């Protein structure tokens, strides 16, 4: 017992610095999540897996909780993974990550494994992360003595089991649980859960929380690299356009990611050692260098909002305006100081 407490993290697991990549041309060729997965056409979550693995490199263990990225990537004894991967239950990405990091450390301490830095990444969908796995993620983010990254790929529904509402589904979206009817048009009335700031605010010792979108691939990969360098548990929240659940032509996956950011619906930021930093177009929006696009540019391209009438779009716009104009930290923290 005593030796665990007196030893520092560095005694067993060397810290590392994964330098940020300067642009797409400096990204290495190696794939650790390669072709041959059973995902949809234009699946942005598959792109998250590919780029996350690329950013982390070969000395990485990946854990995946139940969801599309489990079912589509490992069923029927067939996989595109080339780094070690293990399935964990829907709500346990946090506990699996802590357990794996602790296990590696114990093996290194007992001399059964060479001491080296091995990245531990657990991914979960929005159902597995923002709903079911929230408590386990919270626990993982408190255990500051383990290096791990939890990456939540958020396609705003339980898309794997055919698109049920999750805590991350946007207001009004059509889903298996919220089909618009003749009497009631809007069947899903909850506003999207603000997961990343909740975790950052609730775990002051967690050194790194970020939001990403794979339409900005290099920035997203650099967020993964920073999360794996900074030490301790970290969390990244990715917004993934989903042609299946959002109902659009798969070729628009990239464009919808951009529109989510440009309309201000999906702000991009990093919370690094207690400092918040907006980046990319979100930074330009906050600095007043760029005007947010109207949310209808984003909403009207998706079948899940096809039942929206002007009043619904106006409501969505007003709520989004509030995020940027009324919140204590625009786009991030949803309350303001008393006047």
């Amino acid at each position, binding site marked *: 017992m005593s030796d665990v407490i007196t030893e520092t993290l560095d005694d067993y697991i060397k810290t590392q610095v994964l330098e940020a990549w300067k642009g797409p041309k400096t990204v290495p060729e190696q794939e650790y999540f*390669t072709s041959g997965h*059973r995902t949809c056409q*234009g699946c942005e979550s598959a792109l998250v897996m590919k780029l996350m693995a690329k950013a982390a490199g070969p000395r990485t263990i990946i854990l995946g909780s139940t969801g599309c990225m489990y079912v589509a990537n490992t069923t029927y004894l*067939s996989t595109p993974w080339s780094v070690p991967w293990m399935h964990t239950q829907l709500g346990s990405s946090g506990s699996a990550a802590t357990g794996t990091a602790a296990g590696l450390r114990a093996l290194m301490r007992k001399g059964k494994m060479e001491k080296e830095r091995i990245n531990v990444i657990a991914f979960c969908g929005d159902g597995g992360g923002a709903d079911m796995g929230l408590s386990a993620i919270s626990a993982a983010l408190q255990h500051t003595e383990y290096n791990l990254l939890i990456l939540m790929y958020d396609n705003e529904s339980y898309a794997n089991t055919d698109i049920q509402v999750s805590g991350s589904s946007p207001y009004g979206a059509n889903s298996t649980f919220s089909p618009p009817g003749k009497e009631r048009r809007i069947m899903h009335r909850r506003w999207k859960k603000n997961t990343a700031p909740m975790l950052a605010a609730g775990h002051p010792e967690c050194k790194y929380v970020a939001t990403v979108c794979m339409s900005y691939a290099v920035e997203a990969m650099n967020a993964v690299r920073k999360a794996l360098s900074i030490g301790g548990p970290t969390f990244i929240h990715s917004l993934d356009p989903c042609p299946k659940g959002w109902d659009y032509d*798969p070729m628009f996956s990239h464009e919808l990611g951009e529109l989510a950011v440009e309309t201000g619906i999906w702000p991009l930021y990093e919370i690094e050692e207690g400092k918040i930093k907006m980046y990319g177009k979100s930074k330009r929006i906050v600095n007043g260098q760029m005007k947010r696009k109207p949310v209808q540019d984003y909403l009207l391209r998706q079948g899940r909002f096809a039942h929206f009438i002007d009043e619904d779009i106006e409501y969505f716009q007003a709520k989004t305006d509030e995020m940027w104009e009324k919140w204590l930290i625009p786009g991030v923290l949803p309350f303001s100081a008393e006047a």
Partner: protein
Amino acid sequence: MSTGSVEVVYRGIFQKTLAKNICRGVVFAAKKEGKIGTAFGRYSDSPERNGIPAKQFAVVSDTHDELQEHLARYEPDNNDVTIACDDALCKGVESWAWYGLQPINKLLKKGGTLLVTSFQSPNKLINFIHRKGEPYNLALVRAAASFSGLWVYKDDHTDARLLGALAKVAPHIVGIDAICEVIKEQWKDDLKVASARKTYEATETIPVSADQGNEEVPFEFEKPGWKTMEEGLVIRGISAEQQKVEGWEGGYVPTRNPTFKKFSTRTMRPVINFDTCIKCTLCWLQCPDSCFDITPDGLYDANMEACCGCGVCEAVCPVEDCVTMVNEEAFDDNASQWEMWVKDKKGYETWMTEKISDKPPRSHGFHHVGQYAEETADEST
């Protein structure tokens, strides 16, 4: 005393409602004729992935016992009719829960009918369809593949037309009068009834002989038996090393999953203009399927083993005419475009110019609110 079955092969999600309408229509119509039937999706196709081939079935029997007997199997084979809702499926079907490529006519019984929605000539389709070894019939419904999104159903009458054609090619399963009655009941739309009857009258079948069709052996691989599976649920990972491919030294071809290919997932594929490529890397970086191989000269070549035809590469390419999505039916093979270009640049240009004239209609999925209402209004005028 008899049982008949219909297999509907369609594109997951985007044609799910279409397939459901066809199978339900068959069962309802059979009931009108005093028979009993059931419609169901193949369990292993669920959850569906958009674009990936999936199947639904309608089984119709004279008696309850016969129906039960026929259902006691994983998926009905010896089908009287196989309906392909997209003619690109004639190249083969690799459902997401399947091993290897399955010919579109594999579960069709001898003398059965393959019913396809297509604007292609019958001969062109027969060249795609794998040789069956038994005679069967081919019937075409002249229509583009009807891709509707999940939440919004584009009612372009494809379901009614296929039901009408089905009554023509398999009257022993359902007759046209019952079909029309059901369409009227379900949709309360005389125009749809007229569509079904018109297609019924226009549909003709072409006999396909046992030795006609694509001679290629469909892609398959060795499956592990229970004695060769490893303890626990272990799957061997893919090598992180690149493949060694002759002529590609200095480039980068990633090792790919050997047991799942995307040959049959595409409805279109990218054609690359290597002369205008500025090597920005975006197609390669943004491809969710890692389908782009890096060529020795630093260009990017879409590998057809891995491309699922999503079109993201065309969308992200900053050059106007560098990546163009083209109808999958325009291609007879899966050869490397870059190798073709290296061998004969002039010839490639001619080939490319011809191919990119065959652009698919982008009715695929949803674009904006009111789109389908507008489109169907245009069609009916």
